[in-house]
């Protein structure tokens, strides 16, 4: 396994653990209205801590692989993964936008809409810049 592959495993396990820990009570309560700011921050901090500890452990036991940079295959696989993740992110942002509009929360709706529009502007602008650079 390459270091990048191990890194993906660590992130997947950490995120799954944190997500189950956070969302299970909400799922049991059958409501998305529960939860607390502190719990969200706690979950985010827990994720970072697990990922850092995981990477330190790997670096201790396999220092050679930890030194290696991502090669072209790692980068291509990472791009495919990013693309799949972006579909999920986009779908949830759209769901959030719809919910904010239904609730009349225009501040949240505007922020989510700005995120959607902004990411599209960055994506297409970046693509055009690369096309221009390579032509």
């Amino acid at each position: 396994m390459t270091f990048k592959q191990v890194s993906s495993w660590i992130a997947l396990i950490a995120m799954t653990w944190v997500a189950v820990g956070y969302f299970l009570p909400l799922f049991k309560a059958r409501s998305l209205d529960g939860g607390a700011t502190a719990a969200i921050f706690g979950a985010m901090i827990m994720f970072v801590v697990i990922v850092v500890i995981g990477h330190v452990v790997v670096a201790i036991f396999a220092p050679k692989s930890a030194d290696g940079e991502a090669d072209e295959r790692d980068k291509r696989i990472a791009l495919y993964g990013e693309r799949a993740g972006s579909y999920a992110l986009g779908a949830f942002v759209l769901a959030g936008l719809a919910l904010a509009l239904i609730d009349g929360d225009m501040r949240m709706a505007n922020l989510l809409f700005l995120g959607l529009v902004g990411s599209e502007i960055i994506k297409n602008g970046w693509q055009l810049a690369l096309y221009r650079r390579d032509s």
Partner: protein
Amino acid sequence: MASTSIRNQIRLLRFQHGEMTQGQLAERIGVTRQTIAAIEKCKYAPSLEAAFRIAAVFDVPLDRVFEYESADDRDFQKRRQKPV
């Protein structure tokens, strides 16, 4: 990743070059051992640059290392048979 239409002789060439290991070849190309293994199993088509580097390590022309099996490339075959 899905299998590619690029066949290769890397395993044979490694054997002919002092039984070079995948790790040794990977180090000289600047990729991971797993990438060399994926290329050998035709699971990953390397970049043109990496392909040239592999050929350079074995000191042979590119077509001694890689060959393109167009018959295995279904998408290409479909486009080729399309009437103009």
